């Protein structure tokens, strides 16, 4: 097992014919993912990276039985692409594209409540279950199959930490980049729930950053609901208050959303927090040793 994507995943790439879509389709295929279709309106009938392209999601799903999608279409068209996925009952939708308008995402998030589906992102690296399926832009080579679940608001920081884990021979069940935008489809808690329920996951790494209070909420959830150990890392201690640090979501809007506040919340909840990426792997190693 794993969460969100696994051996049963039949992936469709929305926006397969764009530069990034094509590049990462190739990488996802190379990672052994069952990429069954691509969708780009007007390019139906073509093939990209040996994957058949369709004009619409409906057609792609009818012809190939796709059940998960990864979105590379330009930001202006992302909400539409997400609605298209949801309306044809794709169960896991990963929106990689960054720069999706916040008002579009509020509508998507509201619509999601009537759908039995998980949206990851936008502005995220996607989801990867090593050795099973890669619906992401994460470099497959740094992953190795195992029992640590990874959930993160940040993309490259996730790679950094996964790399540290792999170098210590600590494998991953699934890595989920939930994205750092102000409005995202799925928060920490929903992913933590899934890891808690996944028999293959023994320990979870949670990677947060400044902005919002998702880490604080997650800390409370971990303390009250989770039996599996969680190791956390928060980035942004050096970020000046009130400055935008790249992610639109990483705005320090008040005392509550600073790295310090998040770190304190983690400590209060009894969660081990690392001070740098390497230390995350050390703490995970310790945790797994204790558990065995």
């Amino acid at each position, binding site marked *: 097992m794993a969460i969100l994507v696994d051996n049963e995943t039949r992936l469709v790439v929305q926006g397969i014919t764009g530069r*990034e879509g094509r590049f990462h389709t190739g990488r996802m295929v190379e990672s052994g993912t069952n990429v069954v279709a691509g969708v780009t309106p007007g390019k139906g009938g073509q093939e990209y990276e040996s994957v058949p392209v369709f004009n619409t999601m409906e057609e792609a799903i009818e012809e190939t039985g796709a059940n998960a999608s990864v979105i590379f279409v330009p930001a202006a068209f992302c909400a539409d692409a997400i609605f298209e996925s949801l309306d044809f009952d794709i169960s896991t939708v990963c929106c990689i594209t*960054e720069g999706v*308008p916040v008002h579009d995402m509020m509508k998507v998030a*509201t619509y999601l409540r009537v759908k039995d589906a998980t949206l990851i992102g936008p502005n995220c690296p996607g989801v990867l279950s090593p050795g099973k399926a890669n619906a992401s832009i994460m470099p497959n080579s740094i992953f190795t199959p195992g029992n640590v679940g990874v959930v993160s608001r940040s*993309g490259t*920081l996730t790679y950094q930490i996964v*790399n540290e884990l792999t170098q210590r021979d600590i494998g991953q069940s699934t890595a989920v980049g939930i994205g750092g935008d102000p409005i995202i489809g799925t928060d920490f808690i929903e992913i933590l729930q899934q890891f808690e329920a996944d028999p293959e996951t023994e320990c979870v790494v949670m990677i947060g950053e400044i902005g919002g209070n998702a880490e604080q909420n997650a800390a409370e959830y971990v303390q009250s609901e989770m039996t599996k150990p969680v190791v956390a890392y928060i980035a*942004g201690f050096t970020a000046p208050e009130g400055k935008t640090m*790249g992610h*639109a979501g990483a705005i320090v809007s008040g005392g509550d959303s600073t790295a310090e506040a998040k770190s304190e919340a983690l400590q209060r909840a009894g969660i081990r927090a690392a001070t740098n990426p390497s230390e995350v792997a050390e703490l995970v190693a310790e945790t797994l040793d204790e558990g065995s």
Partner: protein
Amino acid sequence: MDLYEYQGKELLRQFDIETLEGIVAASPEEARAAAEQLGGPVAIKAQVLTGGRGKAGGIKVVQEPEDVEEAARQILGMEIRDHTVRQVLIEAGAEISSEMYLSILVDRAEKKPLILFSTEGGVDIEEVAETNPESIVRIYIDPLLGLLPYQVRELVFDAGLEGDVAKGVGQVLNNLYRAFTESDASLVEINPLVATEDGRVLALDAKVTIDNSSLFRHSDIGEMHDVEAADPGEQRAQEAGLQYVKLDGDVGILGNGAGLVMSTLDVVAQAGGDPANFLDVGGGADAEKISEALDIVASNQQVKSVLFNIFGGITRGDEVARGLLSALEQSEIDLPIVVRLDGTNAEEGREILAENTPENVHTEETMLDAARKAVELAQNGSR
């Protein structure tokens, strides 16, 4: 993207929200001319993209046009929280009977717009939230349904408004919600929203933040952006599509992805260094963009060493390496540069660098080692 008060008010007026008459002035002479045009007592208000201008002396009220010039002279050029005042808004007076607070913002946790209203306006809303939380009415909006009539009534009744003020606030709220959605704002805030003696309801201030990601559909708002206001480096970065924030240290930092760059800043600080900036080259950055990014970081005269931390996902290591070499060629940067490259196509990138490494470029295998090296080089370096 934050709008100046005068720009925010321009936007509110487009959505039928009444403000006082006002004219922007960039010099004491323009300020006086504006005051004469408006007539009567006027307020002279510093236009800066930060709060606290009142306490800093950035707002003055004068009775006579001849006093305007002197007041404007005092405000123009003033530094308020690192922001230089380059313009003032000269605004007509009004007979105010009460001050209220009204805002709409994007609530991250609920994933919906949130309306905040209080009859205690004109002061810091966070202060009101602490001292008198009962006075703040909170209403969440379903973004698919929009603001419903019952919600407007609820705000008005919960706040205990009556008569003309109730009606006026209701109208402003409907208009402000339109402004919020149709302009793709992440925040619209009117503090104070005032009721006048003659029963009108006006926006006396306006704080508007537009979602940068939406600017492709708001070219008119995008054009409002006042690039002169920013640091020259921040200006260049913005034009190049790079996320850059200048800080006070001497270790220049660039990398890909906000989280990794933030983490790099933290690690540099832990290693005893002092970050000179935050620069995220973003996903899929090509050689040209990397070159421009490096140039922006190096053009900060405080920088004594540069740490370049790349972990490739969308960004490919070979492009990063080529970008780095190309940037070095073009800009003749002779600062010490520590490069740490990992992830997608990292090996190809490292090979490219190995073949062409200039003398001032050091490569390190790990992020921690790279941080330590960059800090060491900055401490030993000079410029």
